[in-house]
Structure formats: C-alpha cells, structure tokens
C-alpha cells in the first residue's frame, strides 16, 4: 500500500521535475520545483524522518521557492527599469 503511494508520489515528482526543467515559463518552473520538495517531505514522513520532513517542507519547498520568487521579481523589476529609461 505504502509502496504504491510512494510510486505515485514518485511519478508526480518526476513529472514536476520535468515540468520544472522544460517549462518555458519561469514561474511555472519555480512552482514545480517547490512541489517536488513538498512531495519529498511527504516521502520523508513515510520514511520515518519527521524532522527532515519538517525542514524540507519549511526550507526546501517554502523558503527556497520564496527566494526564487524574489529573485524573479527583482529581475522583472530590472526589466521595468529598463523600460522606464
């Protein structure tokens, strides 16, 4: 049962990874990579590592994604500045 669950999670993660890599839209890519981490933290829970799961959820999927988004927004801002000039 758990095995099947893990396999399904795994397939979703792989798909998310492929989307993250292939997607033309950076936002989609960033969100997808966040999803990977999120799903990974579920797997950690299954693997009896709640500490890791918490950390991965908080840092891997949470903070990292936010840092990505901030970076993206700054780049957009730079673009806007160019347009303004």
């Amino acid at each position: 049962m758990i095995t099947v669950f893990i396999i399904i999670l795994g397939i979703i993660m792989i798909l998310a990874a492929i989307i993250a890599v292939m997607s033309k839209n950076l936002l989609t890519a960033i969100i997808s990579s966040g999803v990977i981490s999120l799903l990974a933290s579920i797997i950690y829970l299954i693997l009896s590592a709640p500490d890791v799961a918490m950390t991965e959820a908080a840092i891997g999927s949470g903070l990292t994604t936010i840092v990505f988004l901030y970076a993206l927004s700054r780049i957009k801002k730079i673009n806007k500045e160019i347009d303004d000039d």
Partner: protein
Amino acid sequence: MIKRLLIIVVIILLIVIFLPFMKNVILKDSLNELSSGYVEKSVSDLKTANIVTAVVVTFRGLDTLGEVTVLFIATAGVGLLLKRKKGEKSKKSDKRPASEILQTGASFLFPLTILFGVYIFLHGHLTPGGGFQGGVIIASAFLLLLLSNINFQFNHTVLHWVESLSGAFYVLLGLLGLILLGSFLNPKFLPLGTLGTLFSAGAVPLIYSFIGLKVGSELSNILDSMRGAEE
C-alpha cells in the same frame, strides 16, 4: 546537436556508473553499531527524547555550528551582492499596496507565528522539529509582514542584535562545555533532568533555541536582502 548527444551519452553512462548505488545497496533492517550507540547514549547520557536532536545538537554539534555558519555566510553573501549600500537610492516602487485584509491579517498572525516558531525550537529535544524548523517559521512571520506591507522596513538594529547575540551565545554555550567539562559543545553542564520534560537534556534546548533565533534572524535577513533592502 553533437553536444546534446554527448550530454545524453554522459547521463546514460552516469546512470550505468551509479547502478551499484541503486542495485548493490543492501537495505538494512537493524541499526548499526554507531546509531544504536547514539540511541542508547541520547537516552541514558543526554536524556534527550528526540534522538535526531541529540545527534544534531550534541554528538554532531560541530556540524550544526558549521551549518549555522553556512547560513550566516549565505546571509553575508546575499547581503554583499544584493543589499544596497547605505544612502543608495532605489526607485520608488509603484506596486500597489496590499489589501487591507491582508495587512490586518498579517499583523494579527505575526506574533502567533513567532510564538509557534519559538515553541518548535523550545521543544526540539522532545518532538520533531527544532532550531532550524522553528527558525524558518520565525522567518516566515517576517515574510508575512514583508508581503503585506511593501514599504515595511525591518528594524535592522534589533535584527542585528538578535542575530549577533544568539550566535555568540551559541558559541559561548559551547565554550562553557569546554571550560566546565573539558570538551566543546558538551551540553551536560546543565542538569540533565528527566527524559521527556521541557527542562531536560542539559543545555540542549538552550542551544537549540539560540540556533532557532539565529537561523530565524539570518533567514529573515536573507529575505530582506533579496528584496533589495538597504544595508
């Protein structure tokens, strides 16, 4: 195109090379000597219920100190790269302010989130989670503020003091272990208490708390820098 092909070949070969990692690993079903030793010692010698915490804070305390340092370095690095120098002008952001609801909700949630973070690292030795997780939650509280109020400025002085002092106290606790018990980061200079209670495990909760504060302030700082704040 040739390069693409080469890359495919490289990845296939890497998979071939890594096959033993996937195939030959014999997944064990019992603890090895070291980890069972950890389990026993953290129960008997440290009275720490969360064995991972015992490992992280005590046995491999130097790693954790290093880990905090890595975050610290990242803070400094991101600060070096992205923070504007004092007095450097930034273009007025013409972003629309966040909605009233969000602003109010954020200011309501902020202390609660902080509190939750503190709870997490205070109970690091008992339940899952600890300094890092708690720290991230504290940082997310700040994030909330940042998101809700674009012109929000961190009170840098407080942040600096918290960050500096929590780090320094962490080192100081380690030093106390060295002075009192002869080895760095030995948490046993405080009474060990009884297993499973808040005041147990010697200095472990204390250390983890400082770690939490440190991590929280560092991550907040990173976010602040990423946002492009002043130094």
